[in-house]
């Protein structure tokens, strides 16, 4: 018995890999696929470090980085001033990739619809209740719109997708801004809640006359119909990686990178888009881990951004990447 035990212990210790640094992160679910890919690819570049990411939600990510239980956080919405004030040191927002929300619907014949911001706001406020309403018909001449009730579907769980969408509605409708506001979870004036992108798209697919908002990546992978949206230049733009990158290029980005990119100027920009951030402290607590984090971030911008398009995320445009690289250089460890 004793020899068996000692042999077993020896075998176990021999099979354990030489000390590999483990860096933990947690947060948003939206960028989880691209972050997973990045961590996988980076392990081939530098195998002395392993990244571990838990997609527990933006709220969780913000809380964990404030409590410093993780080495970096991730969030689909920027942290508010009150939350940032709770941080023990200066916390940086590093934007990584961007995505878009699209408006999906269930109408007979799957027509291609064109909608503008105020119309969508009115629909989600419950003020436009029929598909045959003049506001919708006026933008879609030639499309046969049934005289059917509009069934609004929104997210029941808190999410960055909701944040981007309500941010957009707040910027195009002062009534929405006053009555509802923006957030990862809001008090919806009308409609049903579905859990996750799957819940919303499932509900929309099942219910004739339904309308809902989902992530572009999700809509593309599941072949769901979505509307062209009118941007601030007056053009109707289809959501795509190019139109989201165009939105990023013309968005007003302040120095701390906490920006909203909904309804940006730009002729080819798609209006309902948002970026996702990594949250890292400017002064890293652990020098060794800090160095690895900075090396990973530099790699992510040099090489990782190229992988974004294959997973239906929009990479950051050149001018933004330059600014982000400068910010990364400021991280001290």
């Amino acid at each position, binding site marked *: 018995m004793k020899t068996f035990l000692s042999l077993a212990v020896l075998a176990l210790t021999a099979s354990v890999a030489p000390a590999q640094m483990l860096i933990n992160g947690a947060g948003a679910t939206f960028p989880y696929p691209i972050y997973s890919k990045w961590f996988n690819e980076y392990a081939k570049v530098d195998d002395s470090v392993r990244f571990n990411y838990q997609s*527990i*939600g*933006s*709220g*969780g990510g*913000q809380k964990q980085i404030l409590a410093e239980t993780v080495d970096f956080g991730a969030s689909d*919405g920027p942290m*508010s001033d009150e*939350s940032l004030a709770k941080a023990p040191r200066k916390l940086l927002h590093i934007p990584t990739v961007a995505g878009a929300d699209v408006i999906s619907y269930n109408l007979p014949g799957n027509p291609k619809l064109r909608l503008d911001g105020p119309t969508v706001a009115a629909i989600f406020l419950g003020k436009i209740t029929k598909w045959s309403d003049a506001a919708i018909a006026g933008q879609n001449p030639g499309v046969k719109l049934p005289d059917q*009730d509009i*069934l609004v579907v929104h997210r*029941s*769980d*808190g*999410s960055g997708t909701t944040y981007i969408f309500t941010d957009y509605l707040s910027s195009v409708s002062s009534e929405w801004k006053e009555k*509802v*506001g*923006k*957030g*990862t*979870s*809001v*008090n*919806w004036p009308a*409609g*049903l*809640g*579905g*859990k996750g992108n799957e*819940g919303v798209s*499932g*509900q929309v697919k*099942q*219910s004739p006359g339904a309308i809902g908002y989902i992530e572009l990546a999700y809509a593309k992978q599941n072949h769901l119909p979505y509307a062209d949206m009118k941007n601030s230049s007056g053009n109707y733009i289809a959501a795509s990686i190019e139109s989201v990158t165009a939105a990023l290029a013309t968005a007003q980005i302040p120095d701390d990178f906490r920006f909203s990119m909904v309804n940006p100027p730009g002729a080819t920009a798609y209006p309902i888009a948002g970026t996702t951030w990594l949250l890292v402290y400017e002064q890293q607590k652990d020098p060794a881990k800090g160095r690895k984090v900075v090396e990973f971030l530099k790699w992510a911008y040099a090489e990782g951004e190229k992988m974004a398009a294959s997973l239906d995320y929009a990479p950051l445009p050149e001018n933004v990447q330059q600014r982000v690289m400068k910010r990364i250089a400021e991280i001290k460890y």
Partner: protein
Amino acid sequence: MRAAAPSPTADAPAARFAPPRRWPDVSFRWLALLAAATIVGLIFLVGWELYRGAHLAVARFGLGFLSKSAWDPVADEYGAWPFIYGTLMSSLIALLIAVPLGVGTALYLTEVAPRWIRQPAIMVIEMLSAVPSVIFGLWGIFVLVPWLRDHLFVWLKHWLGFLPLFQGPIYGVSVLAGGIIVAIMILPIITAVSREILRSVPDLQREAACALGATRWEIIRIAVLSYASRGIFGAAVLGLGRALGETMAVTMVIGNRPEVSSSLFAPGYTLASVIANEFTEATTDLYQGALFELGLVLLAVTILVNVLAQLMLRTLAGKSTGKVN
């Protein structure tokens, strides 16, 4: 077994009523006590942690939280009433459907069914309880809800539309759909417990009723059901306890809208669903506190229901309430 040192009272006839002196017995006693205390302690710990997490919201909203109808994370205004209403309504509907079905099934299995059918039928019903909640939810969204929207609800509205319960627009996802799915999930437990209760009714009762000329149904009604009524009530309360906590299946078919409506076709929201949906993204401390408080309310209601169930089931033992006139 090794011979232990004989204790002074080992040979006395009253020894088995005296406290054990041998160390295996004593240590077993303490271990068992520790296990029991751990479980009780865990429940108190859960309650305490919930209260600790909720204290911000409790301090801010007080008791009015229970009757307020609001859920606005942007304005930080929270009220539990729509969720309490949704939880109670869906559980009540589930009970109204599952208790007659479950007791009927139990009656069939104990009184009427031929012997060879009993075991297979019991196995099938137990399998129903083994299906995970999420599977029920998925089946609910893709099979049940479309059928309800296109057939059952239309039929109900057509025939019973004069009642405010069956008025209003039909979406498919609704409080009624939530109630139906929970009914399916609590059916096994109600059937199982009712079956045990009915089996415990002494044959003497049935024979007495039969001897007085009762028909099959009269035997069941007079001798069996009235004797077992308290126990069946306990089974129903046990089912209610399970129904109150159902999360995943309900959240997929109930519509997730924190609104109180007189119509059963309207979407609703339950305590467990909102916590599951919104907890990970609760950004402000008050928001999180409000969700904790909802958890506290749910825990309080569930404990209350379970305590009631235990009391009910306990008073059944040895009591005969059947009257044969």
